[in-house]
């Protein structure tokens, strides 16, 4: 057990605590803020709803990971036609424990758009580059050691290059990643520099206190300013444990783009903009499953070693992502003996797909008895781009030598070559037949200098509520088009350092 950590097992009765800043959520944003504030001498309490699972506990087991590291077993569903399955991390370290570890700076054009549309201050390239540099140093962001790159990634790269497309090696927060292909189950070597092994221990080493298994129910306030939070510990099996009250001068909410607006709304906090819980972007993605005539053994080697960036101007990013047998079986459009036959070729499979920078938006609503529920309607334009991304992905896989592919479209036949692919996709793909997933949820407490347009200001402060700061991807005014983790961390670091600069006004 690490120093400064308290879990539900340590708590026998209700707790009442005081601190300078309480941070809700220990993922990319929350852990970063906690480390920055603690480093400046602020008395920080970090609250995490999920459990503490150290590196030594991680295996390649999918079921274990889904049950312990993800919210709701990784089975979130945004309601719409089609529905979009999404996953959120829920453990100390948050989604950084289960993401692929892609670390990219925010595209300049995205920053420019955010600044222009929302009047955001200090968000240009020059403003953020020092933070990106600090993050990349702290999290060991860099390219993979070549011996760790899996054959699935190499094949996808070869296919894309055969098509003449721009392919870039992925930059990842990893310290000599071993290539275990276990990113989504928790890195068993600790090479992935998630918050679990970086900013969380950094914060604790500087005096922060971490409470795991602790669900925050409400943000408390008085006279319009926040005063802390209330919540309770969660016992095994989800049973309610002792209560927790934290009094703090600053409340930082970093629960992700679904839980953050839900907590704010649950606490009776309203945004004059009407945008709290709205403006949700999900970067819908889809999986093309390709079968080769020789062994690929895609689980040996790091996944997503490359990204195809040829179509970034269209809002499309393509990459190969290895899926474990349970994950692949769960998405294949087959069952019974047919499923068995497909899965028998597991080691000859490459899974890849597009990620779409979406133009449509969804919203989070609190439903009585159900909690936060996500509603998202894919636009026709985005559906067309998903279909195009699927086609491009399949083209690259055929160019790499795939003998057949399965498309993420209900009822689609097995496709055995590029000509068949073109014929099939020449007809419009019914939107509701697309099988979509998301792991990038953004925008539900968007920044804008104009309180009529945004929930938060340029530095994450909730408009009209002193001492309340948002520090996760909820802040994004729109989709970022690439992997969002480094942007979340950069904004969190920047906003935390600004809090420190103005600590007197925050009472810190």
């Amino acid at each position, binding site marked *: 057990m690490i120093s400064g950590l308290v879990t539900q097992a340590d708590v026998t009765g209700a707790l009442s605590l005081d601190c300078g800043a309480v941070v809700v959520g220990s993922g990319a944003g929350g852990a970063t803020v906690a480390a920055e504030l603690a480093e400046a001498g602020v008395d920080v309490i970090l609250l995490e709803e999920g459990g503490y699972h150290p590196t030594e506990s991680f295996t390649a087991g999918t079921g274990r990971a889904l049950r312990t590291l993800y919210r709701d077993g990784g089975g979130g569903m945004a309601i719409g036609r089609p529905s979009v399955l999404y996953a959120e991390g829920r453990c100390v370290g948050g989604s950084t424990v289960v993401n692929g570890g892609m670390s990219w700076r925010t595209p300049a054009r995205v920053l420019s758009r955010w600044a222009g549309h929302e009047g955001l201050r200090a968000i240009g390239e020059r403003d953020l580059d020092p933070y990106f540099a600090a993050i990349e140093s702290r999290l060991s962001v860099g390219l993979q050691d070549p011996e760790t790159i899996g054959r699935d990634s190499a094949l996808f790269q070869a296919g894309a290059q055969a098509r003449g497309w*721009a392919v870039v090696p992925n930059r990842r927060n990893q310290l000599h990643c071993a290539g*275990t292909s276990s990113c989504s189950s928790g890195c068993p070597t600790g090479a992935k520099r998630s918050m679990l092994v970086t900013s969380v221990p950094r914060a604790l080493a500087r005096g922060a206190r971490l409470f795991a298994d602790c669900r925050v129910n409400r943000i408390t306030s008085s006279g319009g300013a926040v005063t802390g939070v209330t919540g309770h510990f969660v016992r095994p099996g989800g049973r309610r444990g002792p209560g927790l009250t934290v009094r703090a001068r600053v409340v930082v909410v970093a629960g992700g783009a679904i839980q953050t607006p839900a907590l704010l709304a649950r606490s009776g906090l309203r945004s004059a903009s009407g945008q709290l819980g709205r403006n949700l972007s999900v970067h819908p993605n889809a999986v093309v499953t390709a079968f080769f005539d020789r062994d690929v053994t895609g689980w040996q080697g790091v996944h997503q070693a490359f990204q195809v960036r040829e179509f970034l101007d269209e809002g499309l990013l393509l990459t190969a992502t290895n899926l474990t047998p349970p994950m692949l079986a769960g998405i294949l459009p087959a069952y019974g003996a047919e*499923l068995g036959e497909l899965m028998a070729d597991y080691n000859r499979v490459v899974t890849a797909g597009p990620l779409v920078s979406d133009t449509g938006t969804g919203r989070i609503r609190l439903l009585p008895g159900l909690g936060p529920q996500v509603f998202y309607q894919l636009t026709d334009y985005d559906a067309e781009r998903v279909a195009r991304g699927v086609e491009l992905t399949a083209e690259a896989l055929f160019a790499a030598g795939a003998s057949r592919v399965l498309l993420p479209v209900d009822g689609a036949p097995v496709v055995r070559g590029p000509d068949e692919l073109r014929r099939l996709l020449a007809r419009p793909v019914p939107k509701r037949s697309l099988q979509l997933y998301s792991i990038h949820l953004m925008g539900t407490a968007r920044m804008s200098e104009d309180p009529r347009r945004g929930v938060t200001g340029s530095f994450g402060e909730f408009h009209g509520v002193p001492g309340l700061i948002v520090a996760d991807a909820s802040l994004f005014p729109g989709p970022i088009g690439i992997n969002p983790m480094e942007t979340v961390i950069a904004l969190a670091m920047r906003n935390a350092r600004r809090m420190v600069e103005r600590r007197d006004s925050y009472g810190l």
Partner: protein
Amino acid sequence: MAEVPFQHVARRFAELVCPPEVRAGQRADRVMGELGLMLASLPPAARKALAAALVLLDQGARLYPPARGRRFARLGDEVAGPYVRAVLARRGPAAELIRRLKSVITMCYYELPEVQREIGYDPAPYIAAVSRRRLESYGPDIRAGEAAVTAAPEQGAPGQAAPGQAAPGQAAPGQAAPGQGPPERGTP
């Protein structure tokens, strides 16, 4: 172990949606064990929804003419198989729920270690081997990088390197491996 609601229905469904080998040995029991654990991790609403899917699946068979009014759990393979095929091909929220149930159950089947070995997936020895290789190849870099996590605070301007850490824009500790490039922005 967590209980699976309407377990006899879930088990019968598993026998049809998993590969035929699910009927060998104790596999179906163990799939139910995995399913119980999985369901326990879901929020109450999702558990209820999947339980409702099982009820729909079971009672819906009564409306399937070849079933002659019998429930799904009581159908033989010759009728249950086509019934499941028909249900999974339908559209609508109920069918989507049953497709999700099918996904969860097949995931549970492929979670079984012997099933994974049968399809050539055995990650533990591989993970052990590459983890050893990592430490043998890069041990000093790794130790330096891990020590930097709790190194002294950064001073001065944002991004200024702390002692023991690489300067911004340069390779971080443990990142001196071949193939390292300078930081890039998210666009080419």
